[in-house]
């Protein structure tokens, strides 16, 4: 049980070639583009969804922040589709790898912070000190705010990794338990199966919510800095 619980998280390599590249690129196949005004149902559905999400997410930004729309929309599409594809049996989810999530979180966070430091230096530095703090507390509070700033990319990456990995692990474990219990006591197996169904529904929700949260937080960091 020990070895094969984590084998589904190993980076797929076939004959030494990185198959993981193909798996990461696969969601792009599911989002076809169309030049037409009225396209087929599939593309229309995706365009409607994308419009809904972009209006909801980018309306809080000013014109400078709205230049990030393409980046944030592709981010939420990528994370959402990758997480949802990971719920298919036997598939590999790239977002379970901390390396990939760090690679997404650090550049985006750094971009937002450096934009703020370059264009609105005073205002972005002022974020380190909340309004109305008593004077003796100021040095300690600045240190705390700096730490909380630098922990933002780590938290973004680790949050996504941990949520998706934990969900997949739970599904594996409870599924294995259901199978093992079937020969011992069918009633318990049925209860475990119900738990599995509920967990799968939760995982669908988590897949989409995590994408949303990631993108929302990046957009918040952007809002602070534009």
């Amino acid at each position, binding site marked *: 049980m020990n070895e*094969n619980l984590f*084998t*589904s998280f190993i980076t*797929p390599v*076939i004959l030494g070639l990185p*198959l993981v590249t193909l798996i990461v690129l*696969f969601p792009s*196949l*599911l989002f*076809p583009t169309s030049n037409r005004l009225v*396209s*087929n*149902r*599939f593309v229309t559905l995706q365009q409607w969804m994308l419009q809904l999400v972009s209006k909801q997410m980018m309306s809080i930004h000013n014109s400078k922040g709205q230049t990030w729309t393409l980046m944030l929309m592709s981010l939420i599409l990528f994370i959402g589709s990758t997480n949802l*594809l990971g719920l*298919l*049996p*036997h*598939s*590999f989810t790239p977002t379970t790898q901390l390396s990939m999530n760090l690679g997404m979180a650090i550049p985006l966070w750094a971009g937002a912070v450096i934009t703020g430091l370059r264009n609105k230096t005073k205002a972005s530095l002022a974020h380190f000190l909340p309004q109305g703090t008593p004077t003796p507390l100021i040095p300690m509070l600045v240190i705390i705010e700096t730490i909380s700033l630098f922990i933002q990319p780590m938290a973004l990456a680790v949050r996504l990794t941990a949520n998706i990995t934990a969900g997949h692990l739970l599904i594996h474990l409870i599924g294995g338990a259901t199978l093992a219990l079937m020969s011992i006591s069918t009633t318990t197996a049925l209860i475990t199966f119900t738990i599995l169904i509920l967990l799968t529904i939760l995982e669908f929700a988590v897949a989409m919510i995590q994408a949303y949260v990631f993108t929302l937080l990046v957009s918040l960091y952007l809002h602070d800095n534009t």
Partner: protein
Amino acid sequence: AASEKKLLEVKLGELPSWILMRDFTPSGIAGAFQRGYYRYYNKYVNVKKGSIAGLSMVLAAYVFLNYCRSYKELKHERLRKYH
């Protein structure tokens, strides 16, 4: 000759020469993937009343390919007396 015929019209004896005649350059292979993609897309997705079948066939193929990829680890989890 066996040149420029579609695969279903090639006779069995001519099959090796037909295969050797295909364009195996990178742009040829890319062209093959592109033609295959658009053939599937225009038949199942880019239609007036596309259904869930267009997407679910792709996902089923994805699941099957992943199963083939991880068969080596999965065969140890079968219910057999001797592995």
